[in-house]
């Protein structure tokens, strides 16, 4: 008996200790990020553009706006298509064999290394277009978003009770009205939560942008031209030799982390609200 008690004590202690080790490291990252990052975030980071390499000062304005542009277009591409796909699975395909195949494949796609998606879009969009572009970057991010949105929307819509649908049909409603005016409305809070989560997921992506939207020193927002994004810029600056670049990279790091967490938390709040109703 004593042996078992000792084993118990040891086992639980090891778990607790490893938990604390893990949590400690994670806390350390957050703290150092905040400490160093805030130090370098100031107004000029947002309002100034990059300067010649090696010069002091400069900001991330172009990179931030570029990030916003790429993410927005990606969302416009990926979210509606994902929602429609999810609607198909939940309202039309239901439990058919093919629909379950799509569900599994879609789920699998969420785990594909994002750099591979970048290469895929490079081959299919950048090469034919003859150069890097905002569009290519957005398409890459949209392809990352779609599977997440499809799976989540499918799950959310399936939770809507069937009686609600039947009541609408019984009043003479056609399918599209049942779906959009009744089912989607019932699930709207969950749908918003999914959208926010999908955006938070692609906001911090770097790898897929490396060979699609690439990078740019010229301020241009044209769809068919490359663009600077916060994530790629952060990578470039961090790996570069200049201290001023490193400082900006810290600022970028904290801006990115903050934005991603903002969307993630907002998504959770909506999700929580959904269950309170």
């Amino acid at each position: 008996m004593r042996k078992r008690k000792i084993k118990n004590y040891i086992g639980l202690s090891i778990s607790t200790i490893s938990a604390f080790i893990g949590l400690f490291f994670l806390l350390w990252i957050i703290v150092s990020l905040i400490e160093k990052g805030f130090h370098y975030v100031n107004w000029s980071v947002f309002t100034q553009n990059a300067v010649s390499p090696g010069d002091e000062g400069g900001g991330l304005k172009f990179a931030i706006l570029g990030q916003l542009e790429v993410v927005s277009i990606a969302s416009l591409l990926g979210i509606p298509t994902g929602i429609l796909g999810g609607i198909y699975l939940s309202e039309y395909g239901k439990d058919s064999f093919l629909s379950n195949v799509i569900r599994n494949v879609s789920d699998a796609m969420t785990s594909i290394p994002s750099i591979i998606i970048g290469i895929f879009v490079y081959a299919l969009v950048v090469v034919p277009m003859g150069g890097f572009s905002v569009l290519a970057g957005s398409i890459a991010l949209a392809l990352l978003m779609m599977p997440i949105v499809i799976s989540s929307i499918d799950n959310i819509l399936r939770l809507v009770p069937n009686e609600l649908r039947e009541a609408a049909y019984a009043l003479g409603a056609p399918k599209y009205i049942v779906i959009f005016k009744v089912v989607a409305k019932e699930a709207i809070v969950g749908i918003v939560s999914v959208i926010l989560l999908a955006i938070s997921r692609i906001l911090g992506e770097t790898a897929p942008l490396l060979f699609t939207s690439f990078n740019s020193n010229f301020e241009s927002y044209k769809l068919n031209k490359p663009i600077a994004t916060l994530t790629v810029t952060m990578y470039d600056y961090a790996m570069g030799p200049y201290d001023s670049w490193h400082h900006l990279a810290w600022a970028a790091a904290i801006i990115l982390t903050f934005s991603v967490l903002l969307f993630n938390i907002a998504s959770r709040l909506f999700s929580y609200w959904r269950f309170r109703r």
Partner: protein
Amino acid sequence: MKYICKIDGKQKIDVRNFNFYYGNKLALKDLNFCIKENTILALIGPSGSGKTTLARCFNRMHDLYTNNRYEGEIFIDNTNILDPKIDLIELRDRVGMVFQKPTAFPMTIFENIAFGLKLKGIKNKTELKDKVEKALKDAALWDEVKDRLDKLATNLSGGQQQRLCIARAIAVDPEVLVFDESTASLDPISTSKIEDLMVELSKKLTIIAVTHNLQQAARVSEYTLFLLDGEAIEYDKTNIMFTNPKDKKTQDYIMGRFG
């Protein structure tokens, strides 16, 4: 089943040689009867007897799912509603349904009632307002909600929501209204309010009420059809069936010996 149509009034619905299949399983067997206009017909029987299955044939709810098959005819005023060429949306305009659980849509009270009206193409705001008011009054809900038509319907109590569903169904002026165990999830007071409503509505509509509550069937219905395993065992005026059932199985069921 031999055809039964001993009613003392005009006929509204005629069920002829009717069979229904869930996939390969024969769920309703050889039904042959008629339903009187502007009355309440109670469908009774133990769980699985087919009463809900039958009720959902009148507005062809089964068409929403695959592998179901109708055989025979169901006439509403000389139109066979089982004809594949029938416009289902028009049918569901004529035949309304109230379900077992309240199914208020996630919209305002006004929008709930106006739902069916807008589908029919009624856009005029005054016309909508008038019809919504009339429906709520006919459903005995107007006084309780007239000051909060623009509030979410899902905030109403269960009994109120169910009356909302009734108002929603009658707003489009159906000729037939099917109640599928609509008071099963409600408290006695709400139940009694809805039963009063059913009786009042039956002056202008033909009502088919599925119920497992025999006292309810006795209270509200003029005719009763007793189903067992998909077959019609007995069909008669309610007061006759309940006091003097002709079939032993009916008697056993009514006495509570099974189901």
